């Protein structure tokens, strides 16, 4: 008598990928890596990357000296007229790279912090981290006694502000709004302290410190951009590694703990990344407001709120920054509007709209 059992599925047969996902197999065995890719976010990231490249090309070609896209490409390759090579490679490339790096870092940092605080308004600019980083950087320029580079100081400032906001609010997790208002207070004090320092020193010193107080991509030293680039690469990897935990953190604490997330470690790691990225970005471009809000907002709208769009936020932030800088350069040429003013003019009405439109219940 045939007592053969019904055929059980063998462990190597993986279930087909769910709707809207691709399954990426990185090995042939059952236990190997295998990755689910959200089709929509792959598409969104691809589109954003293309838009970013176009924006960067536009920023390289436009300005007082206008070049055609082809000329710009040639100049980038080191061909074409000496003049256009000089303009593109010496003057604009550095600036566009700085814009991409700072925009991406700020937006990524904003996305991390919003997720951790479960509040879309919890971005580094609003929590006063920008202001504190600025205050520390100005302190380093202003006082001869501090031999630490402004960039390092702005990192320290960012960390101090976050720690303070965190401590005063009693944690970030369940009290998103309290975290934000603690940050508002800290930002106000840091801004005041910056003014105090600027008003107390000789005018030359104040002028040297002035670039740190407005967000601008003008005349930054290449070294800090390079450091930011390296930090950004590491931060992006770290953030994507954290991504799976952050996704679960969007639920309540109880659910997250139930699913085996170590809340403290994840929060600490996320905040750490966010603070380092903000500090490095401020070290390059000064306090540029609203990018940390706009980037993640755009990314989340495009990805339709699936998960935590870390990469898309970074790309969108870079686009916002490059376009804002380009606008500031060409709109009222020869007067150059600092990029921080452009982002504030674009971002503040949007922030107002968020605040006035939403019902009080929906925080993210």
């Amino acid at each position, binding site marked *: 008598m045939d007592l053969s059992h019904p055929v059980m599925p063998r462990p190597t047969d993986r279930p087909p990928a769910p709707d809207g996902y691709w399954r990426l197999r990185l090995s042939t065995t059952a236990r190997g890596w295998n990755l689910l890719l959200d089709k929509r976010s792959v598409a969104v990231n691809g589109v954003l990357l293309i838009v970013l490249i176009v924006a960067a090309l536009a920023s390289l070609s436009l300005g007082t000296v206008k070049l055609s896209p082809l000329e710009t490409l040639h100049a980038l390759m080191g061909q074409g007229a000496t003049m256009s090579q000089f303009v593109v490679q010496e003057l604009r490339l550095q600036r566009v790279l700085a814009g991409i790096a700072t925009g991406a870092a700020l937006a990524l940092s904003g996305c991390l912090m919003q997720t951790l605080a479960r509040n879309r308004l919890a971005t580094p600019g*609003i929590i006063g981290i920008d202001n504190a980083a600025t205050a520390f950087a100005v302190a380093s320029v202003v006082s001869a006694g501090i031999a630490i580079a402004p960039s390092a100081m702005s990192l320290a400032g960012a960390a101090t502000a976050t720690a303070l906001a965190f401590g005063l609010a009693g944690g970030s997790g369940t009290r998103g709004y309290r975290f934000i208002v603690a940050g508002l*207070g800290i930002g106000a004090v840091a*801004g*005041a302290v910056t*003014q*105090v320092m600027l008003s107390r020193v000789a005018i030359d010193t104040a002028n040297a410190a002035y670039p740190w107080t407005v967000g601008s991509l003008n005349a930054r030293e290449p070294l800090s951009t390079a450091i930011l680039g390296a930090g950004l690469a590491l931060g992006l990897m770290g953030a994507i590694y954290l991504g799976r935990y952050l996704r679960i953190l969007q639920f309540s604490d109880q659910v997250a703990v139930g699913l085996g997330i170590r809340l403290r470690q994840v929060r600490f790691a996320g905040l750490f990344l966010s603070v380092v990225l903000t500090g490095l970005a401020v070290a390059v471009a000064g306090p540029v407001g609203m990018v940390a809000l706009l980037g993640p907002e755009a990314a989340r709208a495009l990805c339709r709120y699936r998960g935590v769009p870390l990469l898309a936020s970074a790309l969108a932030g870079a686009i916002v920054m490059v376009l804002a800088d380009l606008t500031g350069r060409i709109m009222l040429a020869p007067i150059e509007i600092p990029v921080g*003013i452009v982002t504030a003019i674009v971002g503040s009405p949007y922030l107002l709209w968020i605040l006035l*439109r939403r019902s009080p219940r929906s925080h993210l």
Partner: protein
Amino acid sequence: MGVCLASLLLGAGSVSPADAIQVLAGQGSDEARFIVTELRLPRTLVGLAVGIALGIAGALMQSVARNPLAEPGLLGISAGSAFAVAVALVLGASAATLTVAVAQFGALCGCLFALGAARLQGVGNDPIRLVLAGAALSSLLIALTSLLLLFDERAADEIRFWVTGSVAGRNLDSLMRVIPSFSVAALITLLIARPLASLALGERVAVGLGHRPGRIRLLVVIAVALLVGGATAMAGPIVFVGLVVPFAARALAGPDIRRTLWLCLPIGPIVVIGADVLSRLIAAPTELPLGVLTALIGAPVLLAIVRARRLPSL
């Protein structure tokens, strides 16, 4: 009284408190007399007026918005009047003329916007969202102001000393220019104090007592605009005074708006003149802008209000 005296006695310059006392007694050297009567006295009087105006304006707004964080500076009203003044300067007015009316007009627009947003969208029920909206409005207006000043160096020069908020170097003329509008505001405040107190009990109670809430609110908006615009025209945008003063007054007087308003009369000048004296002493021989000190004083108060378990309901 104490702070006023301190403001006259202490400060930069080679005039010691003893010399200043001699001047007040009608003696003393010419130099000392000049410093005390021409520099310190106007400054003290301006501080007095600014403190009262901002304190009363803050108390009125908090009462009508039912929100302990509704503060003219935080809600972008001061930024609104600063922006209006910047526009006027760029269009060719000089800082001395026009400023008061323009600043009051800007404050009126900011005030209508803030209260309108609070009432229409129900943001008023959520203090923190209202403050965030105010912060967003302020940052927009500040960005627009700096954009305007990028074009116009003359205006930038005229406004630079003014935009940080200070009572230094203000003369009695600027005080005289705001006296008429402050008198109107004082009259309005006296008129609406009682209806406002009944409005605090709820819309229906106020209507039942024969008051008209819509009209009360309108009058409050006008009074606040006159007060904040006038204060801004004199001393530049000064943040947090309208938060700290009513907070202290309420802590002393309890929830009744009438007693709060009366207490704002002494507390406002105490805060502003006290901060001004500190600003002279801390960084002597130079000075700090007054706005910086009020931010240093106000931010902790803001945190204290928010950290309190329950936001005090109004």
